[in-house]
């Protein structure tokens, strides 16, 4: 079972890297989703897999009796999912707003914050247009 999960994680990571390399921002975000799922699965995997032994204290007992599944990974994964969900929801809103305002989803076309250097024609710094004077 561990082997199967390990290969699943590998496949997810491979898929996510393929998507992350895309210029399209939406694909990039999908890549991040796959990546975070792969990481969550690997937390599950490193915590050790135990079949059919939930870490619940049996009726009438006061302590857990071995064998039981490691209860920590599910807490970690749940936290990671919650955080990932929040970050991702915000990023989606951000990309959506970016698409509305800037009108593109192409990562290469996003050059507003770092405008490409125009070759200095008239010589020196004076040739650079003061593009954000209006925003001051």
């Amino acid at each position: 079972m561990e082997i199967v999960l390990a290969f699943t994680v590998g496949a997810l990571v491979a898929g996510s890297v393929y998507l992350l390399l895309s210029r399209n921002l939406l694909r990039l975000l999908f890549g991040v989703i796959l990546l975070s799922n792969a990481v969550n699965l690997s937390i599950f995997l490193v915590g050790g897999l135990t079949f059919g032994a939930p870490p619940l204290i049996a009726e009438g007992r006061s302590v857990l009796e071995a064998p039981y599944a490691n209860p920590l990974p599910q807490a970690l994964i749940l936290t990671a999912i919650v955080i990932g969900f929040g970050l991702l929801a915000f990023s989606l809103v951000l990309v959506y707003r970016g698409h509305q305002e800037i009108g593109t989803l192409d990562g290469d076309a996003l050059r507003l914050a770092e405008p490409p250097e125009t070759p200095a024609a008239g010589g020196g710094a004076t040739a650079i247009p003061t593009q954000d004077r209006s925003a001051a």
Partner: protein
Amino acid sequence: MNWLVAAPILIPMATAALTGLAWRSVPLQRALTLAGMTALLLAAIALLLQVQHGRILVMQMGGWAAPFGITLVADMLTAIMVLVSALMALAVAVYSLGDIDPVRARTGFHPVFCALMVGVGGAFVTGDLFNMYVWFEVMLIGSFVLLALGGRKEQLDGAIKYACLNLVATAALLLAVALLYGVTGTLNMAELALRVRMVPNQGIVTTIAVLFIVAFGMKAAVFPLFFWLPAAYHTPAVAVQAIFAGLLTKVGVYALLRTFTLIFTGDTGWTHGGILMWIAGLTMLAGVLGSLAVRDLRRAWSWQVVAHIGYMIMGLALYTPLAVAGVVFYLVHDIVVKTNLFLGAGVVRRLGGSADYAGLGGLFKAAPLLAVLLFVPMASLAGFPPLSGFWSKLVLVQAGLEQQSWAIVAVALVTGLLTMALVGRVWAEVVWKPHPDGDIAGTAALPAGQRLALVAPLVLLSGITVAIGLYAQPVMDLSSRAAADLLSPEPYIRAILGEPPPPPVLVGELP
């Protein structure tokens, strides 16, 4: 039990909740934020007084004993970091009175700013690796919102790049934490320090250590993982830029410093002397060259943030008591100076009407006192004696010479020289050169209240920079003590796990 340890989390969190409830009234939000950050500063001073004689404060959250619960712990390094960041938070909160317009305030600047400070404080005091990941994410989501606040096109552009690259960094950090948990079976940092030594295959530990370098390095903006920083840091409101430049990357450096003195010390020749050393040198050079290549004041300072992360990584890479003390000193110096530089650039832009060199100038004629005030952080950045930047660089260079690491010392000195060239250039372009539009108005043109809010933080931070320079010895003493605690972590481990520390279970026998 000492509740002071939880103060760096609880005070900003309570402030965030209260300002969130008061979101209709901007004046009330401002008053609450100022009060909250003042309380945080007082708590930070109390914390430093408590730990100054080597005491280590520990609190087990919810009464769950370590290593099962979440431990909060404050030693000297934590106390110093909390104090400096509380000072910056207060300075930026004052600056925001004059900088953040009511529209931005109503869309949530104040609660989110406090939430960001929750993340920063939490990352400093936590003694649990997974918890540290959580605080990093709190910080990250706060920074997302602050970056996008206002919603100008340029800002959205920067925020998208920042968000995408940091999401990948988050996944890397989580994976590193997961793998470390897999081989040791614990997440408590003190217990990790004991258990990683017992892992039979030390090669795996080193591999995980490298993954941590990637994850924290991405947060700290080191070479070659820094590209999100110059893409985004210059776009948001000035107060936001300043707190980002002052604190966010430094939390990454703190995390590296903590984990690579406490946990990953098994193969220092490879992780510290090898990888971190190369990263340090390349970060310094890439940052300083980048800062010389741009013609925009705020973008130049953004690149300088990257360059000076390199110095701190260099100290960690040298890994001697003197070098680590130098890192702590450098952290204090750099947080103050970077915050000050960005706040100053904000004032310059307000007066000159641009952040481009081409649209700036004439500052000396318009506001000579302000120009002198701006000279302090710039000179400290370049390392002019007797300011704080000189001493912190001196300590690191001295540590490098002791280790006979000639190459990194040479890189550090060249970077210092190039930084000096940048400072000279900025001085000529912004202060001395006549303004392209003729004479500009000085600070007297601003309304009195706004002038006070914008200039008072500059005076405070420049004063701190001068004070650290003139009284370098007390700061150096504190840094040396923090470094000594970091390099012999037994008291730290004992304070958390109890006396004597329980013998770690052999790894590989997880239930």
